[in-house]
């Protein structure tokens, strides 16, 4: 009995040892090839820090061979996977509120526009309210038709004062130049210059993520790859996957228009790997459009983040402090592609955007006019802000709304209504769950403790400023340490020093 058992153990042990030796040997040969198989100096090209701007690589054989050693890829596993990622949500028309409030400055756009209307004027949806002749990106358009009842400072959702135009809604009509027919226009009869000018004069820069186009159009940055982000990998679903189901063709045409504007031919629509239905639908449609393709991407939180999406698709990493445009990548959300389609082919400036409201895990999407107050949408679902908290943004990163009369801007896409559960934070038990959850492989627990001791050098060493504030660490922390707010604080601490 014992002899047999010892024999079995012996052989299994032998097998283990052999496996380990082979593994080490394989690693050694791989790393040996890495060092010897390349021409001297090419290692440097792979370092993102020594690579100020994207340059197309020299296409010779040695370079091509080492281009994608899959083993070297950044591990994107270990981040959060939510079951609720896959679900259908209704998309409704929100209708017209009584008043809309349109802020006079776009976030992320530095140029300021000058008012072209005054109090008492009648405006139509899609007409100019404020204009900057040099930088049309900063232009402000009316989202409804009505009478301007005031141009004054209002308080935004978080209590800050912003100047805004207040319009009393009177009619449901648009500027006559806007094509309101539901037909899909498939031809693009414009040149590159015309397209760029149309996009610049459309007000779509108020949408989240669209501001990255500004540098390309004004600064002449070269783009080599366009990625349309169609992934909603967040705990509660958003609008993108829904839009891809319902307006896939418009988004594809939008991508094609953007292709033409950037002078490229390789737009990719990133689609949630857990939604094969969308992939089938969209890739069926893209077959008719040259230069637009689909790619199914892993859906974990936060894979919808620009930099991580690029890494998932191309394997390239974006260094901290740099933008995807520096590397020749342009990532735009699906709703931006849709807005581009409407702006270029339907002459429609950005008047509407999509808001998803979530209550107790049940989501409803609305197509609403820009500047609609938060409580107008809440009333639609008969929610009252008194009983619970209203959160603007993602459930893991969003902020609580202090003023529910404040208008929604293009930056907002999610409203959350919840009764927060009381959480008591305890001491760190060093479980390492935040390390596993961090998509950037940072060490949130160490950042938190370095912040508490105000250790600037340690914070720098830990790359605290690289944090993308996704909130994954705070979500998983069993001790309920507010790691997200601590990481945010450490970033501001950096700025102050």
């Amino acid at each position, binding site marked *: 009995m014992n002899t047999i058992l010892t024999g079995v153990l012996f052989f299994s042990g032998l097998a*283990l*040892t052999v496996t380990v030796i082979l593994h080490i040997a394989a690693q050694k040969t791989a790393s040996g090839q890495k060092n010897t198989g390349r021409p001297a100096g090419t290692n440097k090209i792979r370092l993102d*820090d020594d690579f100020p701007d994207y340059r197309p690589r020299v296409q010779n054989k040695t370079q091509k061979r080492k281009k994608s050693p899959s083993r070297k890829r*950044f591990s994107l596993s270990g981040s959060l996977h939510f079951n609720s990622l896959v679900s259908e949500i209704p998309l409704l028309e929100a209708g017209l509120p009584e008043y809309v409030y349109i802020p006079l400055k776009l976030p992320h756009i530095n140029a300021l526009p000058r008012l072209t209307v005054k109090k008492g004027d009648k405006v139509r949806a899609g007409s100019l309210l404020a204009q900057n002749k040099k930088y049309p990106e900063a232009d402000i358009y009316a989202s409804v038709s009505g009478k301007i009842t005031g141009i004054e400072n209002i308080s935004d959702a978080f209590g800050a004062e912003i100047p805004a135009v207040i319009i009393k809604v009177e009619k449901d009509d648009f500027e006559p130049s806007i094509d309101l027919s539901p037909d899909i226009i498939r031809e693009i009869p414009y040149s590159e210059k015309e397209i760029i000018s149309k996009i610049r004069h459309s007000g779509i820069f108020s949408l989240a993520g669209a501001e990255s186009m500004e540098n390309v159009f004004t600064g002449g940055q070269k783009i080599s790859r366009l990625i349309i982000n169609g992934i909603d990998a967040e705990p509660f679903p958003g609008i993108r996957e829904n839009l891809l189901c319902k307006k896939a063709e418009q988004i594809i045409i939008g991508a094609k228009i953007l292709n033409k504007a950037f002078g490229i031919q390789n737009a990719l629509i990133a689609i949630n790997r857990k939604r094969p239905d969308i992939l089938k639908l969209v890739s069926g449609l893209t077959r008719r459009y040259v230069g637009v393709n689909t790619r199914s991407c892993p859906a974990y939180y936060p894979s919808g983040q620009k930099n991580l999406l690029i890494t998932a698709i191309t394997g390239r990493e974006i260094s901290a402090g740099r933008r995807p445009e520096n590397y020749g990548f342009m990532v735009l959300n699906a709703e931006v592609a849709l807005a581009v389609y409407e702006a270029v082919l339907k002459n429609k400036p950005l008047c509407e955007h999509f808001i998803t409201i979530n209550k107790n895990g049940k989501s409803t999407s609305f197509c609403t006019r820009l500047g609609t107050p938060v409580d107008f949408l809440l009333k639609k679902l008969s929610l009252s802000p008194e009983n619970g908290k209203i959160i603007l943004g993602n459930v893991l*990163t969003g902020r609580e709304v202090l003023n529910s009369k404040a208008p929604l801007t293009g930056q907002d896409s999610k409203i959350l209504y919840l009764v*927060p559960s009381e959480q008591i934070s305890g001491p760190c038990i060093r479980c390492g769950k935040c390390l596993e959850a961090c998509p*950037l*492989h940072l060490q949130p627990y160490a950042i938190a403790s370095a912040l508490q001791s105000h250790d600037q050098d340690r914070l720098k060493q830990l790359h605290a400023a690289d944090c993308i504030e996704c909130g994954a660490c705070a979500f998983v922390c*069993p001790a309920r340490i*507010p790691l997200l707010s601590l990481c945010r604080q450490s970033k501001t601490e950096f700025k102050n020093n």
Partner: protein
Amino acid sequence: MPGAPYIFSPLTTRRIMLQVIIALLPLVAVALAAFGLRALVLVTTAVAGCVTFEYLGARFLLHRPAAASDLSAVVTGLLLALWLPAGFPLWMVLLGCFFAVIVVKTAFGGIGCNLFNPALAALVFLFLSFPGETSACLQPHWFDFFSDNAQKCTPVLEKLKYLSWENLNTSPESYNLAGLPDFGQMLKGTTCGNLGNITFLAVLPGLIWLLAQRIISWQIPFYYLMTFFILVLVHWLINGTLQNDIFIHFFSGSLWLGAVFMATDYTTSPMSARGKIIFASGCGILTGLIRLYGIYPDGVPFAILLMNAFVPLLDKICTPRIYGTPRR
């Protein structure tokens, strides 16, 4: 508490400790079945002692009474009891509880701040202070709850240490000659040992449970057991005697208990995957070296405590590459 996030993973500190307690239940059940009333008294005393000291420490030393509600003291008490032999004097158990909770844990700042595993440190403290009592094991008297004629016996590994039969080979006759159990006896748990290590089978449900609930990562148990196995195997291949017999070393003593419950303690093990691998491999090698060359029969507590001391260093040097930084 300020701001986002507004939802959380269901896992809290308390829940983690609860899962560990669930994973320990099979071991406690086996101990109760094998040692009856003695085990019950020992386990209750250890748990009650640890919880009491935890509360007192949190109330009067840390001024944070809520700190005692996370069930970690129950885990410490259970683990301490499982490493002690049945019939261990109760005042010594209480002394061990005091050492574990107050000296090793609370004095360093409570949960998460201790450098060494409380239960293991207390065990080693008891082991060094009362060597006679800690090694006075009893023969398991299965399903005889009120048995009063339990026989004293010598644990398997201790027997190995006393053997100087270098020239004995691993034939069944030698086992009988040395009074060592065979594999079947080890599975059945009729061998001599502490509450928690009479059969390694009792550890397996807990291991599977903890892995399935993602409480522990697979790296530590796997690399611990693997490096230990390889070390003993190599030793045995070079000079195969009964003293370095693989199967006795691998399945007896508290190797499995240590690899699954002690080395995986969050606070006293590294956080990154690479750190865990180095830590567990170190534990495995040290355990093997102590068992083969040292004077202590079961090297597990010493090996893990020694590696505990390396954890801050491992946490500092074994960090994964941060996204967007140059490849190393």
